[in-house]
C-alpha cells in the first residue's frame, strides 16, 4: 500500500524548516514567502500541524528562548522528516516531469 500525497501546509512547513530551525512566527512568514504570498498560514493551523508532526517524529523542538518576556520555541526537521520531505520532492518532480512532457506532445501547443 502506498502513502498518500503530503498536504500543502505540511509540505510548506517542512520546507520552511529544511534549511534551519525556526520559531512559530518565523515559520508563518517563511511559508508566505516560499509560496509567493499564495498561502497564508494562521497560528491555529500551524500549531495543529506542528502537534501532529512532532508526534509523528518528523519535527522536533530544537531550543527555547525568552524574547521580550515571551517564550519562543524553535523547531527543526528530524532525519525522518527530512526523508519524508525528500520523498515528497521526488514524487512531485516525477509528476511535474511527466506533466511537462505530456503538455509538449499536445498538438495544439505546449508549455512556454
Amino acid at each position, binding site marked *: 500500500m502506498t502513502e498518500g500525497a503530503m498536504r500543502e501546509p505540511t509540505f510548506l512547513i517542512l520546507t520552511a524548516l529544511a534549511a534551519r530551525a525556526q520559531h512559530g512566527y518565523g515559520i508563518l512568514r517563511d511559508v508566505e514567502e516560499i509560496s509567493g504570498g499564495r498561502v497564508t498560514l*494562521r497560528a491555529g493551523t500551524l500549531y495543529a500541524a506542528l502537534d501532529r508532526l512532532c508526534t509523528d517524529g518528523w519535527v522536533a523542538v530544537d531550543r527555547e528562548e525568552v524574547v521580550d518576556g515571551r*517564550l519562543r520555541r524553535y523547531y527543526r526537521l528530524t532525519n525522518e522528516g527530512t526523508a519524508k520531505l525528500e520523498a515528497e520532492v521526488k514524487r512531485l518532480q516525477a509528476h511535474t516531469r511527466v506533466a511537462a512532457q505530456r503538455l509538449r506532445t499536445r498538438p495544439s501547443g505546449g508549455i512556454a
Partner: protein
Amino acid sequence: MNDVERRYRRLLRWYPRDHRERNGEEMLGVLLADARDRERPGRRETLDLLWGAARLHLRRIVGVDGGFDRRDVLAILSLLAPVLMLAAAEQDLYVLGAWLRGGGWVTSSGSYLASDAALWAIWLAVAVLAVVGMRRVAAVGAWLGTAGFVQAVFVELQDTWSFRLWTTMNAGWVLLGALTAVALTWSPGPARGRELVGRWSMAVLATSVAVPLLFGLLDGWTEDTLFTTAWEALLALGVLFFGALVAAGPWSRVGRRAGLMLLLPAMTFVPVVVAQAGLVPHFMYSLSVFEATIIEAAVFAGVPVLVVLLALGVIPRAMRRGRRPVA
C-alpha cells in the same frame, strides 16, 4: 495585559489542557506578533483557532496521534477478530447441548439452531480463511456474516423487554463483526498481523475462545441455565477477553489499540448493567417495539464505540503528559 491579549487567551482556552500547558504561551506570542496593531482577533483568525482546537480535541479523542501505523492495528484485527467472533456462538452451543441431550427445548430449538447454523458456518469459514491467509474471500464472508448478525440482532424484533435486552447484548458482537470485515477488506492482512503479534498469539486466543464455548455446551448438556452463576460468567468472559488482550500483544502501541478494539463485545455490558440496575428511562416502556429497538440499537452499539474511542484517546494524552518541554 491589553484587550487583544485577553481575547486571544480566551480563544486559547478552547484548546486541550495538555496543549495549552505546553504551547499556550508560545502560541500567544505568535498571535500577538502577527496581530501587530489589531485591536481584536480577526474573524478568519478566530475560526482558524477554533478549528485548530477542535482538531486537537478530535485527535486526542480518537487517538489519531500518529507514531504508529493504523493499518497495522487493522492487520492484527484481521487475524484475531475472526477467531474471537466464534466465541459469540456460546449461546447456540448451549441450545445445541440441550438439543443433543433431548431436553425440553428439543422441539423449538431445532429450528432455532438451523437458522443460526448457517451464520456460524460462515464465521467459521471466515476464521479459517483468515488464519490460512485467504483474506479476500474471508472479507466477503465477514461482510455476509455481519449482515446476518444485523438481521438476527436488530431486525428480528422480539416482543418482550427481557428478550430484546438479551438480543441487544449482542450488539458488541455485531460491531466486532463489522470491524472484522473492515480489517479484512482494508488492512495489509492477517499475514502482517501474524508478523506483529507472533506465532503463539493464535494459540492463546484459540484456547481463550474455547472456554466460553465449552461452558455453553456443557451447561446445555446438563440442562442448566447458561452461565449458572455470575462467577461462571465472569470466569468464562474474563478468560476470553483477557486472552484476546494478551493475544493482541499489549507490549506494543498497535497491540494495545487492537486489544482495546477486541474488547468491543465486552463494552456492551455497560448498558446491560445500567438496564439491569433498573435505570432504564421510564418512557422506554411506552414506546412501540420498533421505536424501542431503534433506541436500544443506538445505545448498545453507541456506548461500546464511545468507550473504545475515549480509551484510545487516553493513551496518547497520558503519553503527552509524560513528555515535558525542554527547560
